[in-house]
């Protein structure tokens, strides 16, 4: 073992070093098991404090946006507030509605939590710092992400609460609709990088002809940002747990740590969405060139995650919420056509790249200018043509025909 492998700059080499040492000096199976456990511990070392930090950051930042102070009582600047909240959640009574469908009700938080953690398996925190560098990384990411619907649906259906049921119906409709532009927006990046592996995609963003993909994929990034915020339930598209309408959506009936698991899963997947955005569009672990020598890649990456998280908080603090039919119309009539056009344009560009004789720098600048202009043009043109639905969902007489409330109120 070389001591330089344990230099904090390259955390990923620790694992590699341990693996090679074990395969040389210990039983064969330890070389598989020990690095895996080590990786899981590293991941948790990032995730668990991040959970607490992120909740604190969100509350403090939102408070700033709202001219308040936010939590400032427990610990310095209220830093320990999240821990206290966690303890409170743990000590709360676990209530289950009498008519709840028992095992889906109990399983839903876990089903929601597992995929949220599993997503991190493929995210590269540094050059060698991915838990599993799958060659189908992006596909895995999208596939695992689609499990969150099932969790929401289980919780909503099983808790025998009408608000939760409405939330379940919404989640199925919204997440299925937003999955499509979400995946389509990724295709542009896949075309440019020529790989599904997230490590390869990050490497492609520093190889000769490319810089960060945000320079050539602005439209895809915008679409991905919107769809990602829909998938992780952030305002203005957090219809699944729209507080003002359906109380807390699918976790209305959950208390104590069962609610806490939903909460943790939500923040975990928000962080995952931020991580994916910085991986795909903002160069992953790459940083500012002349600072890269001094600051380790994984710090760059985590910094990017937190910056994106701040952007999510910003949108949450600023915008009102869309209505469900407007949200669906937005996905189907605005995001999907634009993401399809983006694929078309990117595919043509990738074909041209192979046949061009221009210098990479010139070519990339040209592409960036063209893509930004096209993105702006498309967004403006499409938003002219696209109108949010503002009509009633049906005419009053037709709605009235469906019935009326019984004359007497049932009970007080």
């Amino acid at each position, binding site marked *: 073992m070389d001591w330089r492998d344990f230099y904090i700059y390259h955390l990923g080499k620790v694992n590699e070093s341990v693996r090679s040492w074990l395969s040389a000096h210990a039983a064969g199976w330890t070389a598989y098991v020990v690095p895996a456990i080590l990786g899981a511990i590293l991941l948790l070392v990032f995730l668990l404090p991040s959970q607490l930090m992120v909740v604190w950051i969100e509350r403090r930042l*939102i408070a700033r946006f*709202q001219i308040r102070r936010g939590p400032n009582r427990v610990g310095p600047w209220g830093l320990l507030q999240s821990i206290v909240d966690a303890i409170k959640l743990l000590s709360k009574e676990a209530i289950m509605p009498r008519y709840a469908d028992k095992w889906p009700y109990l399983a839903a938080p876990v089903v929601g939590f597992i995929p949220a953690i599993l997503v991190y398996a493929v995210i590269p925190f540094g050059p060698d710092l991915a838990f599993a560098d799958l060659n189908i990384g992006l596909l895995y990411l999208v596939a695992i992400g689609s499990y969150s619907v099932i969790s929401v649906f289980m919780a909503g259906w099983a808790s025998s609460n009408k608000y939760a049921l409405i939330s379940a119906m919404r989640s199925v409709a919204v997440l299925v609709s937003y999955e499509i532009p979400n995946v389509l927006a990724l295709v542009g990046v896949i075309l440019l990088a020529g790989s599904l592996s997230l490590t390869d995609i990050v490497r492609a963003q520093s190889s000769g002809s490319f810089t960060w993909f945000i320079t050539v994929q602005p439209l895809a990034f915008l679409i991905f940002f919107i769809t990602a915020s829909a998938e992780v339930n952030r*305002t203005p598209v957090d219809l699944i747990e729209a507080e003002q*309408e359906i109380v807390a959506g699918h976790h209305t009936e959950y208390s104590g740590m069962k609610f806490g698991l939903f909460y943790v899963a939500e923040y975990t997947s928000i962080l995952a969405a931020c991580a994916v955005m910085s991986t795909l569009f903002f160069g992953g672990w790459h940083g500012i060139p002349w600072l890269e020598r001094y600051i380790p890649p994984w710090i760059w990456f985590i910094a990017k995650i937190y910056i994106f998280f701040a952007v999510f908080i910003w949108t949450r603090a600023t*915008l*009102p919420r869309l209505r469900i039919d407007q949200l669906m119309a937005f996905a189907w009539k605005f995001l999907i056509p634009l993401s399809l056009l983006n694929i078309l344009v990117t595919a043509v560009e990738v074909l041209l790249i192979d046949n061009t004789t221009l210098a990479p720098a010139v070519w990339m600048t040209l592409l960036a200018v063209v893509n930004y202009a096209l993105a702006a043009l498309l967004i403006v043109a499409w938003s002219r043509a696209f109108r949010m639905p503002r009509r009633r969902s049906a005419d009053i007489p037709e709605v009235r025909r469906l019935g009326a409330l019984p004359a007497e*109120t049932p009970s007080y």
Partner: protein
Amino acid sequence: MLKTEPYVLNMGPQHPSTHGVFRMELLLDGETVVDMRPIMGYLHRGIEKLSEERSYTQCIPFTDRMDYLSSMTGNLSLCLAIEKLAGIEVSERAKYLRVIMAELQRIASHLFGVGTFIDDCGASGTPFLYMLREREKLIDLFEMASGARLTYSYIRPGGVMRDVPDEFWPAVRRFVAEMPRYIDEYEQLLTGNEILRARTIGVGILPREQAINASASGPVLRGSGVKWDLRKADPYCVYDRFDFDIPTGKQGDAFDRYFVRVQEMRQSVRILEQAIRDIPSGDPLPKVALFFHPPAGDAYGRSETPRGELGFYLVSDGSIAPYRFKIRSPSFINITALCDMVVGWRIADAVAITGSIDIVMGEVDR
């Protein structure tokens, strides 16, 4: 559409977006509201009956607790009714002070109403807290004048409780000078916001005729395009001396009601500027005894509160207490039009429309 069976959803009395303990019984088809019934009474305290056991001046604290977001105008309405019943004269300075308080209160109440409305549209509290920032200044002003922050009981039959202290005037001048800029800030944040416009324009339309037939008043009526404001139509205090406009909406949707409120804040600032400039000196204190016996008869006094026409119908039998104390509360009457506005829209719209009416349950239930 699919053949579905409508189901009943009880929204409230405990629900994050029903203002206070209001309960909506919604009949839903999927997410579309098929029928709706407002259920009130969770905050009923029997104010009308209680008032019949008390002297006229003792009734004033009840008005604080009806519309707790605009106590001043509640006091004013009742005092106007009592003065009409008993024939009490009010000094000029008291009239101006009443106007100043009523308009400050209108701004404060509209700030709260618009803020909660934006909250109901799904914003996570930021506009609301921006508006509370200014409301806080107003509450400080009221505290200077009356000593209370929410339940003022400042306006009394025949005048006001006491003259405002000296430090009130620079503070109110500064507020009046600053307020237009803050209103611009809100409009920047909200009026042009595409999501808010999509959520509110065309939503919850209350047509002109329907608004009149429902006897709606205040921003709900003016949002539907009816130019009716008691300050112009039946001027009380000294409102006929001021130059101001009555903003009206175009089609009576939720956005119009929001917009009318914002414009009314601007007009209130205009009135305040004139009232502060013109206020005469003198003694604003009441010239009547604390307990008085109005002549037998009846009177209806009303004023334009932030929510509409708040009227008190008083019947006197010559004794110290009113024989009959009837309240016409604008929130209660405006909310009767809610069903027609909500049917055919989604759950989210039902919440937004309820927010756009700006009800205060203390006044609805009394």
